């Protein structure tokens, strides 16, 4: 699910579930491809974590706020706080590992 600056508060910061946000750019081919994997994981993890994407050029306010310096950047939020972040495109298994690690912190 692609979100925008104006949705960020509601969809991410006020979310009941933890949220994985992928910051991406249209000029980043690995970001373009990673969306396919995130779609798959979104369904699989839907009860445990929300997965959203946000384009850094179209949504500069959020990108500025979190000082995004490269894409893809992943930040996992829980109760409005960034609890985990990582950079660089990942394989499906690596994304899974990242999610589990972050969820482990919450538990």
């Amino acid at each position, binding site marked *: 699910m692609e979100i925008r600056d104006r949705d960020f508060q509601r969809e991410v910061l006020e979310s009941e579930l933890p949220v994985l946000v992928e910051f991406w*750019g249209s*000029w980043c081919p690995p970001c373009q*491809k990673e969306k396919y994997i995130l779609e798959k994981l979104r369904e699989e993890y839907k009860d445990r974590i929300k997965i959203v994407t946000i384009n850094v050029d*179209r949504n500069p306010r959020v990108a500025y706020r979190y000082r995004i310096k490269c894409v893809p950047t992943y930040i996992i939020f829980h109760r409005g706080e960034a609890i985990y972040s990582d950079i660089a495109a990942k*394989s499906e298994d690596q994304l899974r590992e990242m999610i589990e690690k972050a969820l482990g912190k919450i538990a």
Partner: protein
Amino acid sequence: MKLHNAHKTCWNCPAAILKGNVDFRACGQSLEAIRQRIEREGLLIECARLPDLGHFEPTITFEECPEWRPTKYGYLLENMRVMILGIDGYLGWTLALKLGALGCEVSGVDCFLRRKMVRELGADSVVPIYPMEERLKAAKEVLDIDIKFRKINILDREKLGQFMREVQPEAIVHYGEIPSAPYSMIDCDHAIQVQYNNVIGTLGLLFLMKEICPEASLIKLGTLGEYGAPLTGRPLFEGLFPADAILRWRGREWSLGGELTPRDPVSFYHVSKVQDTFNIYEACKYWWLRSYDVMQGVIYGVHTDEVAADPRLRTRLDVDEWFGTVVNRFVAQAILGMPLTVYGEGEQIRGFIALEDAMECMVRLISSPPEPGQYDVVNQVSGLYKVSELAETVARVAAEFGYDVKIQRVENPRVEADYHPFEVVSTKLPNELGFTPKVPLEVEIRRMFELLTQPHIVERIKKVAHLIRPRTWWSGEKRVVETLEVYRPGTRRRRGFKPKLITDRERFPTSKMEEVERAVEALGEGGDGDKG
């Protein structure tokens, strides 16, 4: 009913003025003035076509925008300004007429290098083509199309830049390259000529686009030959590795998704195309230009409705060893009564597409610009065939026209594997751009026989008959290849690998794409879209 590009927005539109409004590279390379404005007012852009809108949020879809009109190929900008480099060529002229018929404002440049090169080799187009002045006049008389033409060599950046400033293109189709592997292998001078013209011409164009029309999309003709034919059997993906490709090494793994796939060009000409690929990829990255790199299969055929409308509108057709593609050469040989020349074992597999289908793909790509900074690749191919299979098909159709055709295997002057696996992925055109191939191989070959058997064309084919059999060896040797075997069609057992064309889509389970998919199915054979 939704057209394939209905959901695209201002971000894809060349009329959206992004430069000066958008802080690309939020990752630390921002322009402070833009940044401050965005912090204050939010992200707002302007429209070059609708200046009265002032500054607005770039969220208008093609379906909603009054400037994008439905056509059977998707929404198309009204009077879209499309510039074709190499407009006098086999593809350039054909596309110019097709776009003109769709209401685009077509402009184009050419320096007639192709005509000159072919004639210097002693050959000529077997379908008569008219001087540009007469072509333009006929386009107006017969199809009511105005084409703005300038005789310009794309290496002359000053003149090309002036013309681009005048036209302000919204899309640029780059056919302005020397398109021949054997021509590049004749000798050092020819290899240098091909690489200089192609690579430097494209590089110069990228700099001009950055300065003059950074929001225009570049549709650049590449070739499937850039990938080669990997003997591992690895599929030829669409330029970039798919999402789930992984590199494993020493117990560790990395995602390859989105990385450029390996290129293994098969001649110095193909090397020039690979170099173009890298230059375009970088330009998109540095300057957020947007481009489709079109990895086109070997093209063949003579027909579109527009070129067939009048003899003066016909596009060129070459059958010599340097500029004639394989199907075009075979048809000419059949008409001459010469056995069709298959190089080596004839088990080489290549991707192919008919002229008419290729033109439709190009229109669809023009109608669906990539996003800012996006370098995208499509494999433009409608079928995979072995060369020997093509010879059999041409022989079969030739028989319908009363020609008794034999096939001959000759020495292979190229350095290529006779037997190899070949698996091609081509999912974007059918699944994201709504393209379905409409011209079966035999149908186009039949059209070719209908045209090329006209007496005045047969006479022209006879004049170049001695130039069909190859004499340009990749080794540098210069001698006509020798015949290894002559056989009758249908008598040779097929061996080797079976090609595989993969057209089903990558996982893309958003409801938006499912909607598009349904619309594509509903469109069927050229149905019209409807706004709202």
